[in-house]
């Protein structure tokens, strides 16, 4: 098979298959949902989260398998009691394996800095009572084209979904509602990201709805010397992606809707949090031959300073 033909097939297959392979951002108090809890004025929050995003179970003859490993660094700063600003910088390693029509198993991959996200969150409503708080905080920001979007391998230039960065400037906005007591915390988030075009490729816009519940499972009874809380974390994450567009044409084998369920644990002290969780798709309604998710594993820590 000629190199040009092979490249074309490989590229097409990847683009069709990884329509929902956009990087998810993580800057939450729950594990993958955002929170409206305060960042004190002049306080910094640092978060590091490792993410393994595995997809496969491909029904097509290409037998595609993909993995994205990310290390996501988040820094937050309290500008005022109401306004907090955040920067999110992912390091990504993307890999795709597939079988060509000629029967050859090939691997294409990339790694490097991903696209940085900057956003601000403003608390527009809060009601504090003894031992509980209710808050509403909209947020808005932009994903910057900081990641390489021109990477190549021996087969030529990698297709857009396999590049570390998108090359596009993508605004996003949303709102978070949080209710927290000493026993549990509820967070709800609705957000929308409008993706723009770069290199004749445009990722589909993404709308997501997240709901999270953290329940204190240890200690049963609080004392004056309780060192920290151990939370059980459950989340539901509903994510809808529009079709990608390649050279202005809608890709009918990309995008769709996925509902994830997350189970995790979180140990929270006054200065730090350690956490881990697994996300599993409960329902996947993807377009065409878009590749389904298998699971996502997340683990990390946060510190205040």
């Amino acid at each position, binding site marked *: 098979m000629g190199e040009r033909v092979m490249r074309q097939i490989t590229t097409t297959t990847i683009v069709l298959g990884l329509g929902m392979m956009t990087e998810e951002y993580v800057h939450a108090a729950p594990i993958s949902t955002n929170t409206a809890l305060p960042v004190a004025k002049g306080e910094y929050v640092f978060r590091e989260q490792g993410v393994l995003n595995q997809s496969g179970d491909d029904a097509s003859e290409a037998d595609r398998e993909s993995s994205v490993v990310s290390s996501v660094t988040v820094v937050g700063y309290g500008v005022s009691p109401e306004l907090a600003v955040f920067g999110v910088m992912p390091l990504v390693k993307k890999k795709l394996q597939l079988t060509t029509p000629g029967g050859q198993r090939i691997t294409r991959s990339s790694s490097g800095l991903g696209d940085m996200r900057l956003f601000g969150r403003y608390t527009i409503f809060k009601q*504090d009572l003894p*031992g509980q708080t209710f808050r509403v905080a909209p947020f808005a920001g932009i994903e910057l084209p900081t990641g390489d979007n021109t990477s190549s391998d021996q087969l030529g230039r990698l297709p857009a979904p396999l590049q570390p960065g998108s090359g596009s400037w993508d605004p996003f906005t949303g709102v978070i509602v949080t209710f927290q007591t000493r026993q549990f915390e509820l967070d709800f988030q609705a957000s929308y990201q409008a993706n723009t075009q770069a290199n004749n490729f445009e990722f589909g816009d993404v709308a997501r709805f997240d709901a999270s519940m953290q329940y204190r499972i240890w200690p049963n009874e609080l004392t004056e010397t309780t060192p920290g809380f151990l939370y059980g974390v459950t989340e539901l994450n509903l994510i809808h992606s529009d079709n990608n567009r390649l050279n202005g044409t809608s890709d009918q084998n990309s995008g769709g809707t996925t509902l994830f369920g997350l189970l995790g644990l979180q140990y929270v002290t006054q200065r730090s949090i350690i956490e881990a969780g697994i996300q599993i798709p409960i329902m996947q309604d993807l377009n065409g031959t878009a590749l389904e998710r298998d699971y996502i594993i997340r683990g990390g820590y*946060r510190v205040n300073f």
Partner: protein
Amino acid sequence: MARSASLVLGVLLMSTVQAWAGQSHRLKVDGLACPYCAYGIEKQLRAIPGVKAVRVSVKTGTVTVLMNGETKLTRSRVRRAVSNAGFTLRSFR
């Protein structure tokens, strides 16, 4: 005479010890429900000149502030610190 002198000495001694130990204040803070959020309050209160120590109890939603020497802590300064941490001061004494 000796009894009066002892009394005066005792009062003086108590005043000295109290001044050396500093004043202690007890704050009730609304909205405080987890340990991670407590750090913001502690940091804001520690930044007030004269604050020697801060202890936060998530269980009761109270904050104990110990002052250095004779430094005074005012309600308005405490209210501002708690507000800067993103919470609401309920009481101060």
